[in-house]
């Protein structure tokens, strides 16, 4: 096949703002901090940025800052701008930036995701009614106001069909906590035992408190550049190898055709269709853990094990630990690092491939990132250096 368009793009810069539970700073303030750091990290100036992409953009229920706000605050002069919710999950903002660079619409695209959920409190369902999004019309009337409820149904069915256990879900949470101890920006760093995990209060069975990610404030920004402009970057460029963008099932939290997987089934399949690399080539996996079970679903979707075998794959934690065969969520994931909504995984993958991670995987050359749950998923395969 022709070389996939995404190979024209590299990640030339990556950075984060301060991250915390309640920073009491505006989303725009955090975004500017991450953006300026990422631009500097790429060896660029603000004037070099000619593209801007964000998730979810304005109008979403949980945006931290809109592209327009940053555009205006920095007085950017852009050849391309995009922001929106209806894409390949949170990483869709990166996918679109990569395609814009590949198409020549922009040379250096700043991509960001900002969250202020630590200060802002949870997004609560309104009891007022009126204008309910169609996706929620059959969930909200039943008190299923949270993604915790929707994902829990899938997790429970996975347990029923495959014998997955709470202890196996706990292995994902404990792995994240162990790794977070090395991340100075992580939210939860105290050691957690399986007993601690199992004794935490229940949220929506089978999920307890530590199966759910921790809301935080923070912004992550990356710069996506055309590979022809990567030579001047101070850091080794991170090559975009493949995008995982497919949505082959119904775009619904409750009507997806298989109750033991979600949209990641299609994201991951489409990613491997666009590369000569295979799951065996992956040195570290950064896989979404908005809820612990989502990571199992991503592991299975990515082909690191067979369908239904995600539980045994993570059991006892040695395989997914730093130093194991598939070091997973080495920054602490959203479960302990903080709910940076997909972009924390991307940032960590870049740091690992540069050799700059806090908990470095030796000789990391290939990293896979999968973000999202329900029908809102997307994936990225990244490699170290230009190929």
């Amino acid at each position, binding site marked *: 096949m022709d070389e996939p368009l995404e190979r024209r793009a590299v990640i030339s810069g990556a950075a984060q703002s301060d991250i915390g539970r309640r920073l009491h700073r505006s989303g725009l303030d955090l975004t500017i901090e991450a953006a300026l750091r990422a631009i500097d990290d790429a060896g660029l100036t603000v004037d070099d940025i000619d593209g801007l992409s964000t998730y979810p953009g304005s109008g979403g229920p949980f945006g931290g800052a809109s592209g327009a706000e940053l555009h205006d605050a920095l007085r950017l002069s852009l050849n391309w701008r995009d922001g929106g919710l209806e894409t390949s999950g949170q990483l869709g903002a990166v996918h679109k930036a990569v395609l814009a660079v590949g198409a020549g619409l922009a040379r250096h695209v700043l991509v960001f995701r900002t969250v202020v959920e630590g200060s802002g409190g949870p997004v609560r369902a309104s*009891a007022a009614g009126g204008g309910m999004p169609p996706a929620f019309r059959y969930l909200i009337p039943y008190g299923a106001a949270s993604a915790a*409820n929707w994902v829990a149904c899938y997790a429970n069915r996975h347990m*029923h069909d495959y014998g997955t256990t709470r202890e196996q879900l706990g292995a994902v949470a404990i792995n994240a906590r162990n790794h977070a101890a090395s991340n100075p920006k992580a939210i939860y760093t105290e050691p957690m035992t399986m007993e601690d995990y199992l004794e935490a209060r*229940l949220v*929506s069975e089978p999920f307890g408190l530590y199966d759910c990610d921790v809301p935080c404030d923070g912004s992550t920004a990356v710069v996506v550049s055309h590979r022809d402009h990567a030579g001047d970057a101070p850091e080794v460029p991170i090559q975009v190898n493949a995008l995982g963008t497919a949505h082959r099932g119904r775009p619904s939290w409750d009507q997806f055709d298989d109750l033991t997987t979600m949209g990641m089934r299609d994201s991951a399949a489409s990613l491997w269709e666009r590369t000569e690399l295979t799951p065996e080539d992956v040195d570290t996996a950064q896989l979404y853990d908005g809820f612990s079970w989502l990571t199992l679903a991503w592991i299975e979707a990515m082909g690191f094990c067979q369908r239904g075998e995600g539980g045994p794959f993570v059991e006892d934690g040695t395989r997914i630990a730093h130093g194991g065969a598939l070091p997973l969520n080495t920054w602490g994931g959203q479960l302990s690092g903080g709910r940076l909504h997909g972009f924390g995984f991307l940032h960590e993958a870049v740091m690992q491939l540069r050799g700059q991670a806090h908990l470095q995987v030796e000789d990391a050359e290939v990293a896979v990132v999968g973000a999202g749950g329900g029908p809102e998923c997307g994936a990225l395969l990244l490699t170290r250096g230009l190929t």
Partner: protein
Amino acid sequence: MRSVVAHPGADVTGTPTRVVDPGPEDGFYWTSGADGHLRIAGCNDCERLHHPPAPVCPYCHGRGLEPKVVSGQGTVAAFTINHQPFMPGFDPPYAFGFVEIDEDPTIRLGTNIVGCELDAIRVGMTVEVTFEESGDYFVPLFKPTGST
């Protein structure tokens, strides 16, 4: 054993707390129970059912939609016991789940599973519809088949 939670969406005074907000195509779903029958969107051309109701048949792309009475019998495909007070009027714990209807198991209905101990709910359990009147609506819930 945990207690039976018959009607998680109604407070002690019987005031409806369920937020039902039909779109342009699915008003009938929420009022169908007035005569005791569950109705699902069906195509006038190929007669197949689909859900949620849409102004086109997803199979033959026919444009004629008609609510079709179904048996109200189904099977629990997945469920969770919710413990977190996410919404006013819904006092945990209560069961939320997906029920697949007997006429077509691809028709999956979000619902509360009521009328039994929470510990008794299982994937694969057969259930039947029961309606809870809530303001202008009759909200379809499901209970174990044959239970009162």
